[in-house]
């Protein structure tokens, strides 16, 4: 069934978009991530202008992370204090990111920056995750005990001032690294057009050593707020949010996310990390190939002022 999108100005197949939303939703529900890094390239591939894709995906991520956050909230798996501290950094980071985004777009090298940061971030995070998952799996196969990653966990982060007690996470931690984390994720998210939870979750687990029980729910709150903020910002400044496209994506996404979350609970943690690592790595490599291989067409056309 063909449907004409009022802002993207092209007709699309509703079932194709719905299926894409569901597939990405499944992945995001399974791993507890937003899935923007998959959705945005997919939409661009279907022929939607990059700027419209980035803007509309923001509202799609807001929907799926809200649905996720609600169910985590019912299970008391969200730390509200921690979320607030993260958000204070996140909002500032997002605003900074949008500012840099506009600046780079005027310089004409935004595409390169986005492609390079996709390659570097995705391959690093994906590679690390894959490696870590693989090691954990091998250790279990050899029958070794998984060392509690608490040894030496009292690093320099725990020596920082301005400590605060986060009751639900049962940790006592300085707010400085948390605010900085929020800032960085907000900044990266705004520049790259992604939610950033696939970077946030590893940081929270391995660097801040926040218990896994509250990590995913709390990171969803950060994603939710920054994406709502991003939707508003895109709607006000560029007028490029396609509500019809967003609605189709959301319906597919939230449905897929529910099934993904169920599937995710049946898979063991290290297998999940291995799979997610592979997925992220694959997207990163795809972007790398695009940069290295001689493009089929050396020329591209863009509407000035329109697409990023």
């Amino acid at each position, binding site marked *: 069934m063909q449907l004409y999108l009022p802002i993207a100005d092209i007709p699309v197949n509703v079932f194709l978009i719905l299926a894409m939303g569901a597939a990405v939703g499944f992945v995001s529900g399974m791993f507890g991530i937003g899935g923007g890094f998959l959705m945005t390239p997919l939409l661009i591939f279907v022929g939607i202008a990059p700027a419209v894709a980035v803007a509309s995906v923001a509202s799609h991520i807001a*929907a799926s992370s809200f649905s996720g956050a609600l169910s985590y909230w019912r299970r008391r798996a969200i730390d509200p204090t921690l979320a607030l501290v993260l958000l204070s950094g996140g909002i500032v980071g997002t605003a900074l990111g949008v500012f840099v985004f506009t600046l780079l777009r005027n310089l004409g*090298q935004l595409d390169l920056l986005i492609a390079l940061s996709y390659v570097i971030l995705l391959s690093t995070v994906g590679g690390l995750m894959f490696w870590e998952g693989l090691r954990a799996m091998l250790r279990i196969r050899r029958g070794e005990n998984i060392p509690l990653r608490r040894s030496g966990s009292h690093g320099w982060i725990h020596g920082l001032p301005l400590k605060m007690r986060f009751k639900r996470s049962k940790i006592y931690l300085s707010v400085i690294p948390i605010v900085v984390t929020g800032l960085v994720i907000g900044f990266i998210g705004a520049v790259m057009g992604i939610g950033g939870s696939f970077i946030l979750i590893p940081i929270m687990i391995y660097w801040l050593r926040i218990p896994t029980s509250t990590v995913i729910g709390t990171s969803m709150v950060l994603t939710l707020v920054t994406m709502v903020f991003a939707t*508003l910002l895109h709607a006000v400044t560029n007028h490029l949010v396609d509500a019809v496209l967003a609605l189709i994506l959301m319906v597919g996404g939230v449905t897929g996310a529910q099934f993904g979350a169920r599937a995710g609970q049946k898979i063991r943690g290290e297998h999940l990390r291995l799979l997610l690592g592979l997925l992220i790595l694959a997207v990163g490599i795809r972007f790398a190939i695009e940069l290295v291989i001689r493009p089929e067409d*050396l020329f591209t056309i863009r509407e*000035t002022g329109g697409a990023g």
Partner: protein
Amino acid sequence: MTLRAALATVVAAVALGAGALTPARAERLIVSVSNHRVTVTPNYSGEELVLFGSVERDDKTPARTGNYDLVVTVSGPRADLVTRRKERRFGIWINTDSRQFLQVPAYLAVFANRPIDAIAPPDLARRQQLGLNNVLLTQRVGTDYADVVATDPFRSAFVRLRTEHGLYREATSAVTFLTPTLFRTGIPLPAEVPIGTYDIEIKLFADGALVAKSETAFDIVKVGFEQFIANAARNHGFIYGVLTAAMALMTGWMASVVFRRD
């Protein structure tokens, strides 16, 4: 009496002179397009319009030795576009050079009954902007604004890419003469059609010279729901954003209720 006779002669001479000065009446073009208002509805996925018309002659029109030739140029709403070229630097392909095309038609189609170079000599074709190679595409070259030769790599890449998307086209056998004076041509509109006013310029040639021209236009508009959404997004960005965000939250909430397990 002689005076009156002289006056009559003058009057007659003036009348005769005037008659001689009036050029022989040229052909007139009467054209119409099948639809002056193309509406983009939810199930729009491209359309084809038909332009038809006839060449009107009367007894004063000079006789033509050959057949008529016709060139139809359809140009859509104008936009600023930039063409970028990638080059290999430090092992990766990046955009290095770019050219800006200023106020060029977002849609451009040229239809004729036979190849342009057979219709008019090169200088006339250039002057009348016949064919994609001769249409004026203004570029910003440094501080100057100018069009360049058709073989310029940026210009030809621009035309080629637009053609691949069905937004630019040149069909030199699209115009068909049903009778020596009655003609028609189809105007295919792609799915990704730009919204706006489309000007159609019809030029009639005979023996390699321009003998008549006419203009008409059609509009491509969004109606109903599409128009409502597009207007809301453009004119009430903040409210539109709030509503979209609210819609996202509603969808998320509904999903969590529908799929609630505990």
